[in-house]
């Protein structure tokens, strides 16, 4: 028995900020202090609060140490683990109780108290590379229950009644999808998992795969039983090496335990899963493109019908669900559909994981009941906007979604409300923007993305998005006319109506939603030839404030193109014909004398 467990986050966020070094240092210090028999170090999945990484939690006290550095480890080991004295200076500030040696529970902190963890239940709790820990948390019980107590039809009914909708973007009812595939007879059917999380700024699927890979395997086996499939494929991004590694370990362990393979739980049911690595194509998140890619071709979508439930992978009936959708399934089976449908709003049941990013204090992963307002997420859970700036907009749904303006901050977030205000849930990326973000530039950013990622198969998407981007470039370079705004709108609706797949059908959303809520900003670019947020370089000019300039020469020495002239202790000036607007002078100036207009 160990008297103390140290959980260190081994997710991508904390690994990037050095948690492997922390684990190595911990292990060597524990050895040095003779605590090997008493303290166990466990590498877990993501805790969610990536902004404070690397993160570690020491149990039984539940001390949450944040931004830990290798130099801190000897102190943590000798003070906390050896002598039982909490190292207060490293505690996450919100968990510190003044004048007390106790710590506040994480559940009481602003970041965690409104969260409800269903899909992320085991992330940061168990060791994802050990199947026994998953089993100890009711793992594979749901699969056993399905195989021994329910018929496939009953399983599908439970999922239908729970109201679970696809978490990957479209929000299609999962149970309905399964029943469609069940209804088609075939000698072979397939269950696929979409782990090709392509939306920039969304990383919830990665966290589930890294923190709780078995939940996906278990749910896929349940789906296989429900629709009558014996083979599953997980299509996972090659850019997620930790997730790939842990999935492979999980598959190997499940096979060893007989939880994948032949005659699972002593029944007739056989099911196995293989991994397929994506190779960096956003369009492969679209279901038909993903299947074409698994077949080994260019990942181009194809027209529907026939839907995958009829003719999917290798021409056989196939279901495809995303990682987060699967992560909900075992809990629904164990706790019942009423439990699940008791959470959320009328048409959006359960919880949703959002990846908070951008200009927000607590970047990280949060799981909240559907219907939580944007204000609660940003101001309470997210801790607000840093540096005293003002909230301007939140972007949801990635390149397919839209920007939600500050005036709609009290919108309860669910599938239908987000569509109604011109955005969409998407996979759950939530990027917060402040007054320094230019909305025209953001629209352009997403369009550049879709132009790059359009597979080129259908003309409306391939050519339409390119023309749209050209119009945006015209506007941000100061050559736009008012008529361009109407032209853009028309083009947007045309692309939406005529594109083959979801990529093109949603690609204009970032433009449409910014045009709808931030038209002033477009007008400022077009009519006044100004970028109010000071982002679009062609509309900016740098100058030096004569009252503030001390003539220190720092700006002139750092200017990469020699555009600044001036002698020591004399006023400096910027030659705007040479200036490339890189902003170095402004960064370097210690007196705030460089002005951007």
């Amino acid at each position: 028995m160990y008297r103390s467990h140290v959980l260190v986050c081994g997710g991508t966020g904390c690994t990037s900020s050095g948690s492997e070094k922390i684990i190595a240092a911990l292990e060597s210090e524990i050895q040095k202090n003779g605590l090997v028999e008493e303290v166990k170090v466990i590498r877990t999945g993501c805790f969610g609060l990536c902004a404070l990484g690397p993160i570690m939690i020491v149990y039984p006290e539940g001390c949450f140490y944040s931004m830990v550095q290798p130099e801190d480890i000897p102190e943590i080991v000798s003070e906390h683990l050896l002598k039982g004295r909490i190292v207060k200076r490293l505690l996450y500030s919100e968990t510190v109780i003044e004048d007390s040696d106790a710590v506040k529970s994480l559940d009481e902190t602003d970041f965690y108290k409104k969260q409800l963890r269903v899909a992320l239940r085991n992330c940061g709790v168990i060791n994802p590379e050990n199947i026994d820990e998953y089993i100890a948390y009711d793992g594979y019980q749901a699969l056993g229950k399905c195989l021994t107590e329910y018929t496939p039809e009953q399983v599908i009914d439970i999922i239908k009644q729970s109201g679970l909708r696809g978490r990957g973007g479209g929000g299609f009812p999962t149970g309905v999808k399964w029943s469609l595939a069940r209804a088609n007879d075939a000698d072979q059917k397939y269950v696929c998992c979409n782990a090709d999380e392509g939306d920039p700024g969304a990383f919830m699927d990665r966290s589930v795969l890294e923190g709780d890979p078995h939940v996906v395997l278990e749910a896929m086996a349940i789906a296989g039983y429900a629709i009558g499939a014996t083979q599953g494929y997980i299509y996972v991004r090659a850019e997620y090496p930790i997730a790939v590694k842990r999935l492979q370990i999980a598959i190997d362990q499940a096979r060893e335990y007989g939880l994948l393979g032949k005659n699972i739980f002593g029944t007739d049911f056989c099911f196995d899963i293989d991994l397929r690595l994506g190779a960096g194509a956003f369009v492969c998140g679209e279901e038909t493109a993903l299947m074409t890619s698994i077949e080994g071709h260019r990942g181009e979508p194809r027209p529907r019908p026939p839907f995958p439930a009829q003719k999917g992978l290798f021409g056989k009936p196939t279901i495809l669900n995303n990682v987060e959708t699967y992560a909900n399934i075992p809990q629904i089976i164990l706790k019942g559909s009423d439990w699940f449908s008791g959470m959320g709003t009328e048409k959006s049941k359960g919880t949703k994981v959002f990846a908070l990013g951008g200009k927000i204090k607590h970047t990280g992963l949060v799981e909240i009941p559907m219907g939580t307002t944007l204000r609660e997420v940003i101001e309470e859970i997210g801790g607000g906007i840093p540096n005293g700036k003002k909230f301007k907009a939140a972007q949801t749904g990635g390149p397919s979604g839209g920007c939600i303006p500050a005036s709609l901050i009290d919108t309860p977030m669910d599938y239908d409300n987000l569509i109604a205000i011109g955005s969409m849930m998407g996979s759950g990326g939530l990027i917060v923007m402040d007054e320094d973000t230019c909305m025209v530039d953001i629209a352009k950013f997403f369009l550049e993305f879709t132009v790059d990622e359009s597979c080129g198969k259908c003309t409306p998407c391939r050519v339409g998005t390119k023309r749209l981007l050209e119009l945006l470039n015209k506007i941000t370079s100061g050559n736009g006319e008012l008529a361009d705004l109407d032209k853009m709108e028309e083009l947007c609706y045309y692309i939406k109506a005529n594109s083959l797949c979801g990529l093109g059908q949603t690609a204009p959303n970032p433009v449409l939603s910014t045009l709808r809520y931030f038209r002033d900003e477009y007008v400022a670019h077009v009519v006044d030839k100004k970028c109010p947020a000071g982002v679009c370089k062609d509309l900016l000019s740098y100058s030096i404030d004569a009252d503030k300039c001390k003539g220190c020469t720092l700006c002139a020495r750092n200017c990469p193109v020699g555009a600044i002239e001036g002698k020591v202790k004399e006023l400096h000036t910027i030659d705007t014909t040479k200036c490339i607007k890189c902003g170095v002078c402004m960064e370097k100036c210690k007196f705030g004398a460089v002005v951007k207009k």
Partner: protein
Amino acid sequence: MTNKKTSVPFNGTPEQEQALQKVIEAHKNERGALMPVLQEAQEIYGYLPLEVQEMIARGMDVPLEEIYGVATFYSQFTLNPKGKYKISVCLGTACYVKGSGDIFDRLSRALGIGNGECTPDGKFSLEACRCIGACGLAPVITINDDVYGRLVPDDVEKILAKYAD
């Protein structure tokens, strides 16, 4: 795009070819095996020049144009060799909003190369990449397997200096 035909002469070794043949053998009769084979071939050679694609075409009995089609479709595959130090700047939304565009510009200026290019000495290559999922550390760059987060443009020179060997 970065997938233009390369001007660097191909100099694969017999060991590499042997490793590739093994991979082809292992996957030959598998359905949908082309992607895994290309991925492993890129592991072996570092990139997928036409010569390697030809070997795969012969070994797998797949037309070369199909292999070229797949190799140029996915951004992970490259027909150009990369530098000894591969610099990727994340231009995902979270990083972009936090100024990764400025980091990219600074790197580009410091190295004198643009997106998808390699320095003439073969030391550094630079590319803009999609979200790597480390949004909590935005803006982020990676150099080979090292990750650098929470950057400001002034950090660029310091980081490059670490690779001065």
